[in-house]
């Protein structure tokens, strides 16, 4: 049994390889890009618009609204990064209903990569908004004694992001696989439906936590919310 799609290797040359994680990620990128290109091909700027356009607008505006509710006022600036995080994770989870599909987010490499992107994005947006000095000063708040704790917090939350998403996605796939061997008819179906729900929740959690981290980096006085959703 494969615990990660990383172990499903199609091609390898030295350290370079093409495994199922990369292949399915490229597939998702292709589907998302082509679908977006096709759906936004004939957008109407008048009151009369298609159902697909309504769906796209609901999706984009919904993400934008969630970003604003976190506290990021200029949501348009963060829409690309946070929205793509949500869409990538959510699409990966939704595609698990396809037979033979291995979600890239079930790979620790993928979740680590996403967590590292968040890890880089937080200081990037923080420095962009407050300047380098202002951002570094936030590590000394509320006092210089908190510097090591802040650094540990920065690293640990990145690790938590990666492991949380990986654990949830991998466990969902594993449970379905195990149940298939025990009770092949009813329970795998239920667990797959539950996995879809869990995947959507994880996509929301991952992107909203990233938004909260960026917001905390931008607003120095804003404490990291303790009520952040966790599995």
């Amino acid at each position, binding site marked *: 049994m494969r615990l990660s799609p990383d172990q499903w290797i199609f091609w390898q040359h030295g350290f370079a390889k093409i495994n199922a994680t990369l292949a399915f*990620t490229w597939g998702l990128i292709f589907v998302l890009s082509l679908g977006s290109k096709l759906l936004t091909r004939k957008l109407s700027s008048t009151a009369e618009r298609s159902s697909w356009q309504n769906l796209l607008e609901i999706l*984009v505006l919904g993400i934008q609204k969630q970003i604003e509710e976190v506290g990021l006022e200029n949501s348009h600036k963060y829409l690309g990064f946070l929205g793509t995080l949500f*869409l990538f994770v959510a699409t990966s989870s939704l595609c698990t209903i396809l037979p033979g599909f291995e979600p890239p987010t079930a790979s620790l490499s993928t979740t680590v990569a996403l967590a590292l992107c968040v890890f880089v994005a937080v200081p990037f947006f923080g420095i962009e908004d407050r300047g380098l000095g202002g951002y570094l000063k936030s590590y000394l708040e509320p006092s210089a004694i908190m510097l090591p704790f802040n650094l540990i917090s920065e690293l640990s939350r990145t690790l938590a992001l990666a492991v949380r998403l990986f654990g949830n996605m991998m466990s969902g796939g594993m449970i379905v696989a195990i149940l298939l061997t025990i009770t092949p008819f009813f329970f795998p179906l239920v667990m797959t439906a539950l996995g879809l729900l869990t995947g959507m929740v994880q996509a929301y959690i991952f992107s909203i936590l990233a938004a909260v981290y960026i917001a905390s980096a931008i607003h120095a006085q804003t404490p990291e919310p303790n009520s952040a959703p966790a599995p």
Partner: protein
Amino acid sequence: MPIDWFTVVAQALNFLVLVWLMKRFLYQPVLDAIAAREKGIREERADADAVKVQAGKDREEFQRKNEAFDRDRAELWTKATDEAKAERQKLVDAARMDADALATKRREALAAQSETLNRELGRLAQKEVFAVARKALADLANADLEEQMVLIFATRLRTMEGPAKQAFAFALRSAAQPALVQSSFDLAQAGRDKICLALNETFSAAIPVRFETSPSLVSGVEISSDGQKMTWNISEYLGDLEKDVQDLLQVKTA
């Protein structure tokens, strides 16, 4: 669970590429479409507000014009009514004047007609009187009318007395010209002799007399001298007849 760092790097790059692609093909077009629609809605609302403001102005202008129109109409109506009343009064006055003039003309025409009728009646009466008298005298006494006129004139001369006779006698004596005897017909010599004889006997003197025929005299004989005059003619009777006829006409036209 090992972490494949090549896959980590590749997935990070893949994610960044996906971010760019999503911004390029999804977020930006959708946000642009929404912005364009919102801009269109704002412009439409601005246009609607402008149209509303213009409509308000137009409504006020219309109300103002309507009030002015009502005011002008009332003034014109009052003016037209006054003019119509004045014109009506003028026409009534003119009609009344025309009616009065027509009535006056009618009265004048009636008077003229009456006068003409009187004259004609007088002429006819005179003619008839003469004819009747002539025929009656001829039938009854075998006498001529002119001769009877001369006899009556002579009788009147002889019966003249009082101040009238004295004044006439004085005029005859003091007149430089002979006394003028006028008649409406040619007097025969016998008639002239009878008049001369009556004058001579009445005034006891030989009175020079000159005879003339005057058609203007209405069937009669007249003698005049130095402003004194004595006449007998049938117009006296005709005057009475005319008076009677006029009385009769006035009774009929009343």
